[in-house]
């Protein structure tokens, strides 16, 4: 009865009340930022005395913000491609491979996700100082790919282990070569895993702050670095506008994911 919503009696309303409060706690700050970005108060008064698009104008007129968006997008797309490709190959080995130490290898691939990112950031910063990769696009892409790899391997290997290999074997027996069979039979079947890997890899890179703070140079800054350094100066409403655009991107990606899943189910 405690696990049946309709038979919980009065207790369910207590539970519902707590949950509604927690949900408000989770959603209100996000909505608050969006409201502030349209508010006319420089000092972030709430409720805003009036409404304006001024902060968006300032945001789009500032070449530093535009450069940051472009940098983040470039890095994010490169990381998405690299991490999904490497993750796809690695997943084949992890799911289908028969070699000793497979479970250890799987755990090793997941460590970048577990290790505190500040440790990795400091270590990589020192390493890049020696080989001159700090503040370069290549450096960012490498660092973010290492971080994104687990987020590609998990969904792809989950999809792959749910796929019956005999279908691929059948294609090969019918004359397809192994990679043709994978490309035309296996990949379409695991496409939701591949799609999740791409979205997660992009978001990991797009949202990554800690490594970026260490590696950024005055001429190469990602969006999070730009927000971070603005935050350290003042709480300007332009940051609210920038944040709202990021929230919009998140919403768009979530909708895309839902649509994609609906299509895959059909």
């Amino acid at each position, binding site marked *: *009865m*405690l*696990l*049946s*919503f309709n038979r919980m009696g009065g207790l369910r309303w207590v539970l*519902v009340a*707590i*949950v509604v409060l*927690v*949900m408000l*706690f989770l*959603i209100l*700050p*996000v909505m*608050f*930022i969006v409201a*502030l970005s349209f508010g006319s108060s420089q000092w*972030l008064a*709430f409720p805003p005395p009036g409404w304006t698009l001024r902060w968006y104008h300032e945001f789009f007129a500032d070449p530093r913000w535009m450069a940051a968006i472009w940098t983040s997008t470039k890095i994010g797309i490169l990381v998405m491609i690299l991490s999904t490709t*490497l993750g796809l*190959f*690695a997943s084949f080995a992890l799911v289908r*491979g*028969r*070699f000793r130490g497979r479970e250890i*290898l799987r755990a090793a*691939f*997941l*460590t970048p996700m*577990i*290790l*505190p*990112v*500040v*440790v990795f950031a*400091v270590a*990589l*910063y*020192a*390493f890049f100082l020696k080989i001159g990769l700090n503040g370069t696009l290549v450096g960012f892409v490498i660092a973010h790919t*290492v971080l994104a*790899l687990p987020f590609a*391997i998990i969904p792809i290997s*989950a999809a792959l282990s749910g796929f019956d290999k005999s279908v691929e074997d059948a294609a*090969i027996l019918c*004359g397809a070569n*192994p990679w043709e069979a994978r490309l035309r039979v296996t990949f379409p079947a695991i496409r939701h895993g591949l799609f999740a890997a791409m979205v997660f890899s992009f978001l990991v890179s*797009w*949202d990554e702050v800690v490594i970026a703070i260490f590696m950024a140079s005055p001429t190469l800054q990602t969006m*999070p670095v730009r927000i*971070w350094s603005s*935050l350290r100066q003042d*709480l300007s409403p332009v*940051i609210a506008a920038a*944040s709202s655009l*990021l*929230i919009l991107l*998140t919403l768009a*990606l*979530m909708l895309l994911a839902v649509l994609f899943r609906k299509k895959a189910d059909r």
Partner: protein
Amino acid sequence: MTAANRPRLRRTGIGLALPAMLLLAIFFVVPVVSLLLRSVTEPDVGLQNYETLLATPTYAKIFWNTFMVASVVTTVTILLGYPVAWLLSILPARWAAIGFGIILLSMWTNLLARTYAWMVLLQSTGVINRSLQALGIIDEPLSLINNLTGVTIGMVYIMLPFFILPLQSTLRTIDPATLQAASLCGAGRWQAFWRVLLPLSVPGILSGGLIVFVMSLGYFVTPALLGGTSNMMLAELISQLVQSLLDWGLGGAAAFVLLVLTLALYAVQVHLFGTPGREA
């Protein structure tokens, strides 16, 4: 059919994992190991850096503070997250979907955007203080930011999804018939909760709580922005030692301590509950 044109059903070997392994070896293992080596070689060979770290009261306070913040954050997250996971696991799919939507939106929203929201909300002229003053509950603004309160609110906000999502999938696996049995045997609601539902959810709570605790120990961004100088945490110490003081030996030692703590707790997690993410 000759051997040459027979379709090949080769077994997959380790080979396909090589590019990813190479990337991790060069850009993950080598940098981390060399940082740890610096902790025992700079400025001199030996364990002086670790002695300094343990013997200096300032650093000892930072360790203590890190543990305290992580414990407070974990406790509050469990208390707030459990009812949510419980309700989400039994609600009709349509209502639960709204809950999941909110949780995922909050989880995927840029970390800095969320932290910025709390900086604005919690500041002394922010909405929370203004409203409380307008309602006449307080006269002077409460200090909600640059202290433990600020860090706790900001971190719980970020950690809740990481606790709720795995716990609700654990709760889903509990057979409702178990609780019916309890009530048939005469257990009241309270008794059924304490003696049946809660014990059955302990593995989920422990596993999720451990994840939150480990993540909190090494967290950098939120404590740096919402915390004060008097309650610095380990991650910020590492960054300051390296970036401001250029003390790579001591910074490496602090990083090593954080690394060992994290891996040890992770090993406990794997030992008790299996590899997280395996079935994700």
